[in-house]
Structures are given as C-alpha cells and as structure tokens.
C-alpha cells in the first residue's frame, strides 16, 4: 500500500461517515417532534454534507483517477462504502437518533480536535472547519441526552433502550488498520487510543448525569470500515443513487 492509497482510504472513510450520517438526519426533515428541532437536525445534515463534499473531493484528488465527490458518492456500490455501521442504522425514534448523534458527535469532537494537528494541510483545514460544527452537534446532543434521561419515565426508558442498542456499534469508531498506522507514522492520521479515552470519560459522565446506565457489554460490531455493512446501507444507496444510476451523467 502506498501513502496515497492509505490517504485515499482515510479520506473516504471520513467522507462516507459524514455522507451517510447526513442522509439519516435529513430523513427527519418535516418529521421531528418540534419545528425548531426539525431545523436543528437538518442543519446538522447540511453541515455533514459539506464535510462529505470536502473529504470525498479530496479523496478523489488523492486517488488521482479524476473522480469527483459526486462520482464517489453516487457511483460506488455498497461494498465500496466505508462508513461505520453506527452511521447507517435506521433512525428509530427520536431518542435513538439523539443517542446516535451523541455517540458520534462526541467521537467527532475529539477526533477532529486531534486532526487539526495533521501534517496534511487539507485534512488540517477540514478539521478546523468541522470542529466548529461538531462542537455544536455535541452540545445539542448532550443537552437532549440530559433532558431525555432526566425527563419522564417514558423518555428515560426510550433513551436507555437506544443507548443499550447502540452501544455495540460505538467501538468501530476507534478501529485502526494498516492504512491508519501508515499515516500515523507520518503524522497525518490521528492517534486513536487517546480519542477513545476522552470519548469514554465524556460519555460516561453525561450518561451518569442523565440517569442512564452505561452498558457493560464489550462485544462490538465491526465491518463497515471494510465495506461489510448491515442490510440498511443498500436501501440508503438505492434511494440516494437512484438518479445517477437511472440517468448517468444527468446534470441540472
């Protein structure tokens, strides 16, 4: 594996996470429990689409095959997508969506904080821009975790169920492989164990405050980063990619 191939993989994974998370959040458009929350969630989806564009464009440049962000988003099959499984799970109820946003945004906050020190100037710039956005996503998700956890018996039951169901999907966020190690050697990639430690501390603190018990199960799902997905990704892609598949090269 060359450095370029490793960097391509790295950018693709980050870009795919943003793209698929964005897709899921955008499904809340017109369906959220409050108008204000509807706007908030779709704002986040737009933040993520912006991030996906930057990262997938850069992945295309790094790969050097002349692919654009659109090519990568709309013309890859399921097995070529490298987003984490937690990004693609269906939205479930509001508590589930919030719990997912909480787990991913806390991870992203610590991850992009570190990525600001990357030796790669593009990733460094993307990290600085993204950090402002995910800082807000994290704050918003944290407040909702506290509200749902400390709200009514029903809200607490629902958010606890969401946390329990999502827990085994949180570990994949911190996985690393050869590509990551290669890039870490040249100070491009983020060193993950400290990110994981910070994530754990923050998550446990908020769950405790919210009256939500921290799951103890240590079995973790894996596969998304290597293209092995849940049954749900295919459904996302069939809808998302429909236009480009049915009318290749269609433009506005």
């Amino acid at each position, binding site marked *: 594996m060359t450095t370029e191939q490793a960097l391509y993989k790295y950018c693709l994974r980050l870009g795919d996470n943003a793209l698929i998370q964005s897709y899921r959040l955008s499904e809340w458009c017109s369906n959220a429990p409050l108008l204000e929350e509807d706007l908030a969630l779709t704002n986040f989806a737009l933040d993520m689409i912006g991030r996906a564009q930057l990262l997938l464009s850069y992945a295309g440049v790094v790969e050097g095959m002349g692919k654009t962000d659109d090519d990568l988003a709309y013309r890859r099959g399921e097995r070529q997508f490298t987003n984490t499984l937690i990004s693609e799970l269906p939205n479930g109820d509001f508590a589930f969506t919030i719990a997912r946003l909480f787990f991913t945004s806390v991870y992203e906050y610590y991850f992009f904080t570190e990525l600001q020190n990357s030796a790669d100037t593009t990733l460094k710039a993307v990290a600085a821009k993204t950090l402002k956005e995910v800082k807000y996503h994290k*704050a918003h998700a944290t407040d909702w975790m506290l509200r749902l956890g400390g709200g009514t018996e029903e809200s607490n039951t629902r958010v606890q169920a969401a946390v329990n169901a999502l827990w085994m999907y949180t570990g994949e966020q911190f996985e690393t492989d050869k590509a990551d190690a290669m890039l870490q050697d040249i100070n491009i990639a983020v060193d993950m164990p400290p990110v994981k430690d910070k994530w754990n501390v923050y998550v446990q603190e908020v769950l405790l405050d919210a009256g939500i018990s921290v799951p103890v199960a240590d079995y973790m799902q894996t596969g998304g980063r290597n293209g092995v997905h849940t049954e749900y990704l295919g459904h996302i892609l069939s809808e998302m990619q429909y236009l480009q598949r049915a009318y290749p090269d269609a433009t506005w």
Partner: protein
Amino acid sequence: MAIDSQLAIWEVFMQAKPGANYIHAGSVHASDKKMALQNARDTYTRRGEGTSIWVVPSDAIVASNPDDNDMLFDPANDKVYRHPTFYVMPEGAKAI
C-alpha cells in the same frame, strides 16, 4: 383540546453586527434558557444574519394596551420640535 406539546414561547432578538441594536427576529419554542438559545440559533442564524442573540420568555414581556393608544402616543403627534430635524446633518454622518 389538543395537548400542547410545543413547549413555552420565547421571543428572539438578534444583533446583526457588534454595536447595532437588537431587533426582534421572531419567536421559538423551548423548555429552558439553553434550549431557547440553541433553537433561536438554529432558526434565525442559518444565513449569517447575526452575531449575537437574546432570548426572553414571552410572558416576561409587558405590552402596552392598544386601548391606551390615544393617551400614550397621540400627544406626541403635534410636537415636531422634539425631532432633531432643525439641524444640518454633519458631512459624513450617516445617522444622528
């Protein structure tokens, strides 16, 4: 009657740039201060409209009664000398 699931109303005031007046932008629903501020941010600053936000619970606002308009506002109508219209605008000043 349908149950109101939309929380309390807060009035939102936005400042377009530092030093400018805060102008009423609209209202949002929220259960607490923090949520009101976040909802105001998400609802009214999406296109770079502001640099600062105030939120105020709607029921904390005391409004004048329209029935009192004669008493409150009419006496000011015939007193043009209260306006600074007899001054010449200094060159370069945009507002006084």
